[in-house]
């Protein structure tokens, strides 16, 4: 089976919460993959996971409808089992040598990631040291990757489409938009008048009156992802005021016309806030 070249890169395919102790079928660039935990789901932190083509090479059953035994996914049809490295065993053919397409898989940052087995590409880290995790979620969008990405790397739409985070449509001409590129990255820095925000949210984010909202992101393409820094500055002094949000969004193409967003939301936090939030609201 020929896999598309984009599969060389690590892609998030599920949030950690979405993968229990039974296999799950995911689609990545049209390829159906069975993802499974090779050991019981840990209460905290990353576990060990495996991923193989969802189609059993014996008679075509969907392996994601099977179960996991001794770290292998077991086919629900004839009981053949498949290890994370792609080697297979058949109860009725103990001397047989069988093999399926396997994928590299790991659990990190609250998500399950897969790529083509054996490719030497770095894992896409994003720096959130000193930040408090606010949320992480997956959202499916029925549109091609390019169209979805376009929306998330320009701010002109925020005036009409967004509720609070963005710029006032009637003052978009005041928004500074700088683009800096390297061969591997595109950075876009936007700064302009914050669109009107309800009083309660202004108090939540604690930004100064007449603040300028800054939305500063860098997009990378191996895989496709953007990390956004969002904060406010005093338009006169240029000094930062209020909160600082850092969001990472990964764009995973499910099919040519379907894209999954994996959103990781963080906020800069003092130790007091981190401890209070952990005690009251932690989801991990």
């Amino acid at each position, binding site marked *: 089976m020929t896999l598309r070249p*984009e599969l060389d890169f690590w892609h998030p395919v599920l949030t950690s919460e979405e993968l229990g102790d039974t296999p799950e079928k995911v689609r990545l660039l049209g390829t159906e993959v069975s993802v499974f935990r090779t050991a019981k789901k840990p209460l905290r932190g990353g576990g060990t996971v495996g991923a193989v083509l969802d189609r059993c090479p014996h008679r075509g059953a969907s392996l994601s409808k099977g179960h996991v035994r001794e770290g292998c996914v077991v086919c629900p049809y004839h009981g053949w089992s498949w290890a994370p490295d792609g080697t297979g065993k058949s109860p009725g053919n103990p001397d047989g040598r069988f093999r399926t397409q396997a994928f590299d898989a790991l659990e990190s940052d609250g998500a399950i990631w897969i790529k083509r087995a054996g490719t030497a590409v770095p894992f896409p880290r994003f720096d959130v040291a000193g930040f408090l995790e606010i949320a992480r979620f997956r959202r499916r969008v029925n549109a*091609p990757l*390019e169209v979805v990405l376009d929306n998330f790397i320009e701010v002109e739409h925020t005036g009409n489409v967004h509720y609070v985070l963005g710029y006032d449509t009637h003052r978009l001409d005041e928004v500074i*938009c700088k683009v800096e590129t390297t061969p591997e990255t*595109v950075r876009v820095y936007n700064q302009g008048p914050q669109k009107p925000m309800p009083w309660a949210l202004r108090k*939540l984010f604690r930004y100064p009156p007449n603040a300028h909202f800054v939305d500063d992101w860098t997009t990378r*393409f191996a895989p496709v992802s953007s990390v956004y820094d969002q904060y406010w500055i005093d338009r006169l002094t240029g000094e930062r005021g209020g909160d600082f949000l850092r969001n990472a969004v990964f764009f995973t193409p499910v099919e*040519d016309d379907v894209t999954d967003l994996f959103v990781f939301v963080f906020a800069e936090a*003092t130790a007091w806030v981190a401890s209070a939030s952990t005690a009251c609201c932690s989801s991990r």
Partner: protein
Amino acid sequence: MGRVGLNSLLLKPLTAWLGRLEIEADVKMIEGLADKSPEIRGNQLGRFDRGPLASRNRMRRIYRRGVEGLDAAGVELDDSET
């Protein structure tokens, strides 16, 4: 200034809610587009579209490995422009 009282307790749930709300608004708009073709050649573009244009080139070269198909817009941006 440190964060105190109710504000500290509401930061996480309210920001999470707000993040989801904004994403939902984006998704609703994207899925409702009259034309969801990735082709942008022939579109009339403005100054805020320079980032997307530069990204198209890199997506085609780095992510798609130059494969023709979905991302065949062929639009080039002068990357010296900042």
